[in-house]
């Protein structure tokens, strides 16, 4: 009884703020406006937004893969970097994007990645390119750039911590036997921290799946991410049914990621 009382506040929060809205959302996805059970919302969601669903999955997957790549590179350099000053600079710089909200990052990227934006103009001033021949990156590429820029520090933070706590003897042994930095990273370090990498990337994947500001602010074209479609269904048509059907699709994607995450945790027995 005492235990029950102790968990009651937390349980009430979870029930009221998560389980109840989730149930409402599912009910709304699987019923018509009159409350009759139906799959109409899903039929419409796939008819109108099928491309966007695939697009979302591709964008988020590619961003996750690139995030993993950069996080491994940053973590690896922090451990193996031969130049202490460069390592110190990287260590102090790489975390900054962690503290910048998605919406601010998106606003910065809007002026940075535009055709006549800061990046292209800088390159042109340096005489490297001719702006006239360039196109802006304010489309799917801009979304990926922003996501990777924003999520890499988070994963790198997790991964570099794990790398730092590895037994250095394995790394030094490999170096003594003549292995180069890249080989040590891919064959010695990464296999040992793979579990944590998967956990970090899973969390990054789920976060990116839920972002509305970045796709809406960076890319005006279509296809676009389903968060934009959900907002549009609600704001333009007051249509929560189709919006919730799309939400269900995104639960399934997030659920897959969660499944990987949980399986990893059970295998590791770790609490992360």
């Amino acid at each position, binding site marked *: 009884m005492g235990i029950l009382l102790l968990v009651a506040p937390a349980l009430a929060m979870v029930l009221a703020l998560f389980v109840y809205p989730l149930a409402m959302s599912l009910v709304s996805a699987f019923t018509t406006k009159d409350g009759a059970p139906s799959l109409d919302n899903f039929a419409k969601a796939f*008819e*109108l937004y099928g*491309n966007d669903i695939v697009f979302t999955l591709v964008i988020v997957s590619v961003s996750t893969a690139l995030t993993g790549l950069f996080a491994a590179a940053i973590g690896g350099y922090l451990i193996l970097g031969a130049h202490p000053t460069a390592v110190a600079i990287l260590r102090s710089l790489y975390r900054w994007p962690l503290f910048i909200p998605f919406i601010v990052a998106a606003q910065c990227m*809007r*002026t940075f990645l*535009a*055709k*006549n*934006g800061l990046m292209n103009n800088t390159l042109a001033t340096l005489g490297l390119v001719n702006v006239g021949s360039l196109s*802006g990156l*304010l489309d799917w590429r801009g979304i990926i750039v922003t996501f990777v820029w924003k999520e890499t520090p988070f994963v790198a933070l997790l991964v570099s911590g794990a790398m730092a706590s590895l037994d250095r003897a394995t790394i030094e042994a490999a170096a003594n036997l003549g292995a180069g930095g890249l080989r040590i990273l891919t064959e010695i370090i990464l296999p040992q921290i793979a579990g944590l990498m998967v956990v970090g990337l899973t969390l990054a994947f789920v976060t990116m799946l839920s972002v509305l500001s970045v796709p*809406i*602010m*960076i*890319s*005006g*074209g*279509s*296809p*676009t991410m389903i968060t*934009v*479609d959900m*907002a*549009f269904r*609600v*704001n*333009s*048509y*007051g249509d929560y049914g189709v919006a919730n059907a799309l939400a269900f699709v995104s639960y399934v994607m997030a659920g897959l990621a969660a499944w990987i995450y949980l399986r990893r945790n059970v295998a590791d027995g770790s609490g992360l």
Partner: protein
Amino acid sequence: MQRTAVLFAALAALALSLPATAQKAVTLNVVTAGDQNMVDYLKDYLGPMFEKEHPGVTVKAVGTGPGDAGSQKIYEKLEAEKANPAWDIDVAVIHQKAAGEMVGKGLLARYSAEIPTGKLVTSEAAKNALGSDVGGYVMPMFNSQTAIAYNTAMVSDPPATYDALEKWVRVNPKKFGYNGIKGGMSGVSFVVGWIYAHSPDTDRLIKGPYDPDTKKSWDPILAELAAFNKNVVLTPGNAGTLDMLNRGEIAMGPVWVDMFYTWQSDGKIPPGVKLKLIGPGMPGQPMYYVVPAKAANAKVAEDFIALATSPKVQADGIVKRFNWYPGIDTAAVKPQLDEASWSKLFVDVTPEDLATKGKPFPIASYFNDILETYERKVQ
């Protein structure tokens, strides 16, 4: 003894006076949809002016975000607190779509006949919001209009109609930009104008009656728009179009007139960019002041709206400071304005243009059909 009595008397006086002042102090909650400029207008301009004339009243302005989404939030909040004895929104500023729905649901008070400025409102938009009868429930705060902005350095002879624009875009690929339909109303407005330009019966779209089969006739029209889109830039939002005009990435694009002039006076748009309202017409829309049916401070709310729709405020606030077209009869506003401010607003888009090419948005059912057919056929 005497001292204690004085002290008690003082305390009693204080205790008595407290509830009296508390009763007099009114907080007027004004909630507005729309961009930040709407909140600025209420907070920095109208609020302080009203507080000065009504001591004891504090105006609290809150924004709910741009576009119909912002109005939708106000609608949902009132709907959620429907059963409460008094609602916590006293004045709301909303778009047409929400106004029609809220009148239908009985969420709004019928007040415009009771305020002195009610008779200054003459526009059709004050009676009819996307096909819904809203007469008496709304006072237009302003009218806004979309038009095509073009950079005179890149375009000397801008197209005057949708047909001419189509040809121009074919010759000048990727020099025209608009924000689709999911990134703000200027893009939506451009698409609606496209349908108006190509549809045989525009009047029916604006006035009804609704026929669910009409949308079938739009397939070829929107196929043309899909082809048109191949040669244009899709911009990220209303501000995205203006940004791209500013950076010279596009030469032309649809914008809101008020937003355009405000950006231009802030130096965010070069002076060489001008406006043209192209034929057969592009839509515009008012925003409405409304009083919720159970507003806690309905009387003060009506006074607030009476001030907001007075010719003086419409001239100084709406036209001069924010570059909107007045919500009340222009004839009542013009005497309050100097010639320069008046003509500035009507240089590129003349009053004749507005009269002939400024269209309302279609009735709500056709509006939804247009958006959904666009989603189906163009994207």
